């Protein structure tokens, strides 16, 4: 069964697909995304190497910039939007993000406390002897 490549239903569009736009509008979307992503990347590399800003703020700034750039990629390259035709895509993304944050956050949280709650290594070795 050959389906039309450009059939759009009223309710859902595929991830990566955009609503009907002209070629020029779509190209402009990618150009804007590229410009924003380059700007955020340049800021990240600048902040990582500079001593102009308060040093303890650098890791937080890098993480915020990274999340912002991922958002730019999602919106301008993958065309995941908040529109009603994108609900399924956004829900899948939200579930994926939840698992990612549970895995990364949970690991860092637990492993960060594990060393503090363990007796020093030499005591463990003594009790085993």
């Amino acid at each position, binding site marked *: *069964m*050959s*389906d*039309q*490549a*450009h*059939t*759009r*239903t*009223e*309710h*859902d*569009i*595929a*991830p*990566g*697909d955009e609503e009907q736009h002209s*070629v020029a509008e*779509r*190209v402009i979307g*990618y*150009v804007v*995304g*590229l410009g924003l*992503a*380059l700007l955020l*990347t340049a800021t*990240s*590399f600048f902040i*990582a*190497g500079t001593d102009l800003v308060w040093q303890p703020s*650098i*890791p937080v700034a*890098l*993480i915020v*910039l*990274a999340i912002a*750039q*991922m958002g730019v*990629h*999602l919106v301008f*390259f*993958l065309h995941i939007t908040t529109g009603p035709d994108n609900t*399924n*895509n956004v829900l*899948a*993304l939200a*579930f*994926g993000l939840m*698992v*990612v944050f549970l*895995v*990364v956050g949970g*690991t*860092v949280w637990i*492993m960060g406390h594990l060393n503090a709650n363990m007796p020093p290594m030499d005591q463990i070795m003594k009790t085993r002897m």
Partner: protein
Amino acid sequence: MAMTATAGRAHADPHHIGVVIEHPGPAPKRTVTAYGFWVFLLSDIVMFSCFFAAYAVLSGQTAGGPKGSEIFEQRNVAIETVCLLLSSFTCGMASIAADVRNRFWFYLGMTVTCVLGLIFLVIEFREFSDLVARGYGPSRSAFLSSFFSLVGCHGLHVSAGILWLLTMMAQVFAKGFRADVLRRMMCFALFWHALDIVWVGVFSVVYLLGSGV
């Protein structure tokens, strides 16, 4: 209210709530395929998050070996990042060209994407082989194990993406812009953009944050 659901359209209001929803039936194949691939990509990102978690825990465990700040070269990472970012853009151009069935711009966009991806891989391979040659291979410390597995896993994805890219060019060459080929092209574009998202995490967490450790 409920009267609007006439006998002929009773199937459109099965619970007699007075709101007739015209079910459009199954979504078009393009939507279903891309959605399924989107779910795969998210599970792939979940897999990457495990490698990120391992790196975050082990980045300080250098076992007397080199620290991140001693082995990372920011200039190379910046070139790699720009390569991937530009390739994501040209991949987008190629998918627009595929949608409007323009062979010239499709081949041009895919070729540039391929070249940029190869430049990325060459830089990464030279970085890895240089580290191994200096005795800083993945077996040197837990930090290097997690570094090689995270960055190497992303590199393997890029390699697979380039093979897929060449396959797509060959399919368009042999079969033209058929609906099934266009669906595969769409999945490839999603894959390539998702790799760039993962790379944003890699260069921020591994190279830039790791340099400060």
